[in-house]
């Protein structure tokens, strides 16, 4: 911004313009209104692009992990996995894998939606569900490093919304 073309005003008129206030505090009521309006629209919110990519990555990791578990069960169910296989009524690792894939993808899709399309509470629920899925997988022995990485990435995504530090300490 640059001042020019002021030649038409007299000195007195110029001083008047200079004396005009440039700022005025609208008061706390407007601040409240703006924040309320933003919250109703699900903002201030995280960037959609920054949310979506790692969330879908986390979902993909769960899917790959679940697929590995399912394949492992079908080939040689070990002592740690046997209780799951025995209590699962489907009894078909391929079907388990398909259901798990659809489930994780749907949840991740909900969690990655922009705040305007979905209430923030729903996104929080979706994130918690993803975390729950990861914790269930963590109960199977032998995959602690992968699951730990997964939980950490979900914690990063959820920011302050989900406090899973206690969970991480409990599991690992």
């Amino acid at each position, binding site marked *: *911004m*640059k*001042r*020019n*073309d*002021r030649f*038409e*005003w007299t000195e007195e*008129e110029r001083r*008047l*313009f200079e*004396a*005009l*206030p*440039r*700022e*005025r*505090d*609208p008061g706390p*009521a*407007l*601040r409240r*209104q*703006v*924040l309320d*309006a*933003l919250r109703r*629209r699900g*903002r*201030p*919110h*995280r*960037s959609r*692009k*920054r*949310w979506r990519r790692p969330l879908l990555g986390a979902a993909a990791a769960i899917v790959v992990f679940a697929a590995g578990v399912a394949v492992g069960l079908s080939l040689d169910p070990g002592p740690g996995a046997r209780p799951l296989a025995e209590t699962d009524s489907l009894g078909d690792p391929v079907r388990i894998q398909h259901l798990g894939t659809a489930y994780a993808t749907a949840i991740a899709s909900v969690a990655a939606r922009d705040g305007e399309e979905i209430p923030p509470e729903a996104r929080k629920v979706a994130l918690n569900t993803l975390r729950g899925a990861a914790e269930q997988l963590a109960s199977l022995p032998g995959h602690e490093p992968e699951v730990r990485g997964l939980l950490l990435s979900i914690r990063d995504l959820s*920011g302050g919304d989900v406090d899973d530090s206690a969970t991480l300490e409990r599991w690992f």
Partner: protein
Amino acid sequence: MADPPPDPDRDAVERYLAGEGEPAFLELYERHTPALFQFALRVVGGSTADAEDAVQEAWLRASRRLEEFRWDSTLRTWLMGFTLNCAREVLRRRQRRRRDGKAAAAGAASPPTTLAVVDLERALARLPEDFRIAVILHDVEGFTHAEIGRLLGIEEGTSRSRLHRARRALRPLLRP
């Protein structure tokens, strides 16, 4: 050579986009709203309620578009563009209400401090909308004709001639 000082706006916008959310937004809000509110107040001709509506809507739109801001102007200038558009929409709504005979008395802003400034504020408020905006953008806020042209979607030459006519219209209003 020393590094340039960090831009607090850029820092807050980056934190907002990185997911900090409300604290970063509030930092931007507190820094820019007094100027945006005063600007909107002048554009709408002194109605506090209309200026509040304009500023609120401007923040809502700007927060939605922050990811698209490319820093080819200052953040303040970018935000003033939203505020100007929203204030003009408020004015159009007010004109429609008046035409419908449903105009409500607008709450007047609290008076400024000196008599001379009061005279100028009143004179500005009495100008036709296009003239008022030309004077506010150029003579009060210091925008160039190129910037005004971009903000209003008009040619630089149009901005110059509009300002000239606006000043000619304003001067008699300043004389008792």
